[in-house]
């Protein structure tokens, strides 16, 4: 099957691994990620103000593309996903907002939230299925204690994201289990890493990322896995450095045995 794919700015630059492995793994699992043409940056964060319209247009255009192709819109980057899903939710539930957006769109077309925005994890869980993935694992991550790090963007606001239980999420843990690894459950996995505030006040990022990493390490994790480039940056740069941080797709690629191919291709 084919799905529409919104990579986002970071995946084209600093987080190329996240993007490359996402495509390879999806292909291996029978799904083609078709990149949307001329996509524009999502803006990184969703502005909650009710009168912020223009900042959300790039997300709406991406969603329109998915609707026109009658396919779900998949993102890997947690931030892009958060912005697009929240925008879609607002288009579906806030008539006033939708009206304003459609005035901006004008002759480009109209949109009322018909498309479905899903995260790569939802693609794995709900479309492909963890059982299928389990069957395709070539290099099980046996003996590896892996701490899933959700951060804030994947789960919250939970009413809108509808991804998982915001306080006790299981999707990444289930995936780790399917890949043969041993998930490590720790309380800080859904707390913020410090996010973009690293530009404003690196101390905040240091404090929060440190807390997350210490908690994961104290529960015996060998590594932390994340879907967000900024989380990875903060954990690596501002964490305690106790354990390595890897991208979710990288881990998946390793288990599915497509990671080497990628290296060969390079």
């Amino acid at each position, binding site marked *: 099957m084919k799905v529409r794919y919104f990579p986002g*700015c970071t995946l084209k*630059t*600093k987080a190329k691994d996240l993007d490359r492995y996402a495509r390879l793994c999806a292909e291996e699992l029978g799904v083609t990620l078709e990149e949307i043409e001329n996509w524009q940056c999502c*803006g990184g*964060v969703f502005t909650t103000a009710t009168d912020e319209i223009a900042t959300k247009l790039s997300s709406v255009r991406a969603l329109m593309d998915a609707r026109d192709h009658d396919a779900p819109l998949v993102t890997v980057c947690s931030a892009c996903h958060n912005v697009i899903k929240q925008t879609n939710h607002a288009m579906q539930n806030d008539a006033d907002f939708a009206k304003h957006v459609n005035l901006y769109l004008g002759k480009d077309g109209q949109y009322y939230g018909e498309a479905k925005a899903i995260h790569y994890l939802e693609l794995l869980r709900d479309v492909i299925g963890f059982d299928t993935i389990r069957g395709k694992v070539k290099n099980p991550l046996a003996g590896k204690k892996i701490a899933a790090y959700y951060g804030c963007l994947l789960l919250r606001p939970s009413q809108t994201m509808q991804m998982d239980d915001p306080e006790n999420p299981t999707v990444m843990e289930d995936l780790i289990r399917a890949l043969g690894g041993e998930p490590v459950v720790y309380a800080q996995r859904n707390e913020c890493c410090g996010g973009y505030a690293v530009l404003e006040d690196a101390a905040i990022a240091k404090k929060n990322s440190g807390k997350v990493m210490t908690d994961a390490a104290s529960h015996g994790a060998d590594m932390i896995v994340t879907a967000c480039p900024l989380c990875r*940056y903060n954990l690596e740069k501002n964490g305690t450095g106790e354990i390595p941080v890897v991208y979710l797709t990288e881990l998946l690629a390793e288990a599915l045995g497509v990671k080497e191919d990628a290296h060969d291709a390079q």
Partner: protein
Amino acid sequence: MTHSDRLKEQILRTSGVNPLKCMRCGKCSATCPSYDEMEYHPHQFVYMVETGDIEPLMKSESLYKCLTCFACVDRCPRSVEPAKLVEAVRLAVIREKGGNRLHTDDIPAKLDDDMPQQALVSALRKYSK
């Protein structure tokens, strides 16, 4: 209508938040990751907007410490959504002329080789107009 009344109305409108729903439990502040860096804490944002005491908030550094991580929003028992109030007050500041917090000239100094673009665009969106 006084200036502070107008300000309050503007904040309530842009945020879509009703501070009267607050029951003063303080769970927002209990869960806030930036609490110690803030002068005014999430529950104070809610209370001060309710009482119309908004100007001190606009002058406060607290506006730039919120991570928009939505922990306060998700865990609030009354669905008050304090983070949206912080955002509305911050927008009231940075939408004014000269209100930008982050200036493009200052950015190169803040970057390092690994910093993802995502951090930059997010910060620009949050701190500048």
